[in-house]
């Protein structure tokens, strides 16, 4: 890598908190955000979910958006997370306009929350036209960007559950290639009936709280949220006088090329993504202290991901945990939400616990199931895998090395 890419700001909104402080507190006190359904209007009350504990109206009020303005839950959560990231990186509108700053956001359901409410109105009459225009992925990114302004390039990535991780990879490539000075990257996704029912039809939702890597695991819990990080070169951070949180020292994107919704038994895509991230940073497997696993809690994912980790790390297995046991599976946003969780873990020297793990499975790694504090995390991997085998892995490193 020519010049290190630094992370100089981070913002997060998810089931365990509306900012980094709240999320950190929940992680340390082992309080899950997965609860009975409250905000989504669905008949499937049997599934616990990791909802952001605010209604759309409450979020709009917090953001100072008029209650009658057409918005989507994905864009509202995105705005809240972006505000925290921009504030920490001291990247106000003037700074954005006087630099070349891109915004790259990952989402898949986009404005589906409104489309599924109004689809029949869309077809029959003119009453909900505003929400036709907010249906697609790109419009969510536009709404989030326009709420703050000053971005010179925007684009959206949609690779299902690895969207946010891939947005971060695209952002890092843009900076390395000299296309932009800074990139704010991540993702946002709300729970919708569309994908709750889709995942239900695939029979991968658990009616109990999810248990990633446990022998009795029976599926995932859906979550929602948004997170963004500010990426910039070391020289840009130095010029602006901002303090970096960590280095994005490597990343890998590979395709499992196995099945549209299932992962291969040997975890080929996951293995390649992690291997590529290590190679880019010129690190060896035993340099990694912690992996924030994709760890959805489905029988298939956790077996496949474990196989990939075992292939790469052998006997030098780092600490592994899935924080989806706290947040639920935040789908397109999971890559950036879990990146921010990794940043918190590195800064506060702890390994997040993989909640609800009790029974070892021969086909799975044994995750961190008891509090591990005062641990130096120099190098951390964060995995995100999507439908279609869109597998990505991000490597975060300590800035003090």
């Amino acid at each position, binding site marked *: 890598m020519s010049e290190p890419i630094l992370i100089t700001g981070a913002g997060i909104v998810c089931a365990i908190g509306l900012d980094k402080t709240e999320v950190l507190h929940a992680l340390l006190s082992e309080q899950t955000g997965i609860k009975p359904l409250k905000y989504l209007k*669905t*008949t*499937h009350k049997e599934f616990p979910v990791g909802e952001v504990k605010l209604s759309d109206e409450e979020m709009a009020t917090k953001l100072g958006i008029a209650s009658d303005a057409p918005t989507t839950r994905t864009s509202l959560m995105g705005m809240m997370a972006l505000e925290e990231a921009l504030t920490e990186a001291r990247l106000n509108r003037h700074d954005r306009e006087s630099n070349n700053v891109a*915004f790259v956001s990952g989402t*898949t359901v*986009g404005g589906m929350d409104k489309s*599924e409410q109004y*689809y*029949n109105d*869309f*077809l029959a009459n*003119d009453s909900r*036209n505003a929400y*036709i225009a907010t249906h*697609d*992925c*790109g*419009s969510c*990114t*536009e709404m989030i*960007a326009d709420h703050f*302004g000053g*971005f*010179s*390039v*925007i*684009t*959206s*990535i*949609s*690779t*299902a559950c690895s969207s946010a991780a891939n947005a971060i990879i*695209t952002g890092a*490539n*843009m900076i*390395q*290639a000299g*296309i932009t000075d800074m990139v704010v990257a991540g993702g946002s996704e709300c729970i919708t*009936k*569309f*994908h709750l*029912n*889709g995942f*239900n*039809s*695939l029979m991968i939702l658990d009616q109990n709280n999810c248990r990633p890597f446990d022998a009795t695991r029976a599926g995932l819990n859906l979550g929602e949220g948004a997170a963004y990080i500010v990426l910039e070169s070391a020289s840009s951070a130095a010029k602006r006088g901002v303090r970096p949180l960590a280095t994005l020292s490597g990343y890998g*994107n*590979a*395709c499992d*090329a196995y*099945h*549209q919704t299932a992962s291969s038994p040997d975890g*080929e*895509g996951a293995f*390649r993504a992690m291997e590529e991230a290590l190679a880019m940073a010129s690190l060896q497997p035993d340099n990694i202290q912690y992996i924030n696993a994709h760890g959805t809690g489905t029988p298939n994912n956790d077996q496949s991901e474990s196989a990939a980790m075992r292939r790469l790390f052998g006997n030098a297995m780092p600490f592994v945990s899935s924080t989806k046991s706290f947040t639920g599976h935040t789908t397109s946003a999971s890559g950036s939400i879990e990146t921010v969780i990794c940043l918190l873990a590195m800064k506060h020297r702890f390994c997040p616990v993989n909640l609800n793990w009790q029974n070892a499975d021969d086909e799975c790694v044994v995750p961190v199931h008891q509090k591990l504090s005062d641990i130096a995390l120099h190098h951390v991997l964060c995995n995100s895998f*999507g*439908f*279609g*085998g*869109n597998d990505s892995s991000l490597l975060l490193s300590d800035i003090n090395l």
Partner: protein
Amino acid sequence: MRKIYIQSAEQISIQKPLCDEWMDAPELYDGPYTRSIDPNFKQYLSPTESRRLGKILKRALVTSVEAIRNSHTEMPDAIITGTGLGCIENTEFFLSALCNDGEQLLKPTYFMQSTHNTISSLISIHTGNHGYNVTYSQKGMSFDSALLDAWIQLQMSKIDSALVGGHDEMTPSYFTLLQRIGYVGGDMQGVCGECAVSFMVTADATDGMCQLGGIKMLYHPSADMLRNALSALLTEAELDEQDIDFVMTGVNGKKSNDEVYDKLVETLFPDKPLLRYKNVFGECYSASGLGLYTAASCLKRNSIPEFLKYGGIKSKRDDPRNILMVNQYENKMFSFIILKSACCK
């Protein structure tokens, strides 16, 4: 800058598919909306694939496989797709069942093929490709975003080749919705179509259709930002302003759209001969991919069909060397792409 080439390009659109017969005898359309002319998919796909896959997936797979076959690269290092609406037909099937039949009887088939990345991942599964795989969805800049990603990674030498696609299907019901919000239909004289276009973009010059000179994308740019981006792009492409023989725009016969191009041309290229492509290929979110295909086809043939020319300024030369393509979406997002004739490399 590393020299990058478009080695092959294949389309399934509202023109005759998988060939460039449209350059001699284009299909003409009056209506506000038409669907693509599909090839006989059974010639290209297995019986299971032709039966099970939705239209957008079959088209994407066939244009991809043909573009790879017509290139000198068997296995691209990256598969990058741009799509504005993704697999909207399957999305609507699932959405409609959800809204009308409730939440109890939904089958997974349509959901499994509803995500935008189904396209890129299907291509990787079909071809056994484990390389970089990403999908962009940014309205009228979806394809441009995918091309920009390929360009960046080729320049960084992270990859030597990329299969870059632009894919959008348009269902009758979604056409109705897009009419409601004024994207197509209304006063638009052109047609709303569909797009499946795939390119092999490589660092290998062998038998290239043309050279990709560079790409810039901008959001809410000021006039100065547009001018600066254009000037930087020309420098990177090692061209002077006078080397641009034609400017290709995305005029589609809709006043609000065409006015933006007219203003841009007036400001930046008042003396340039102009080209269009949406009069032949129609409008859709990834139509800029068909624009790139049109420009690349002209450079490959070393001639420009008369029906692409507009604006009244005659070209000094009929064998185009360099074409600048301009794309914009709702006067908010802009892109510039330069294509150079492969013979001037």
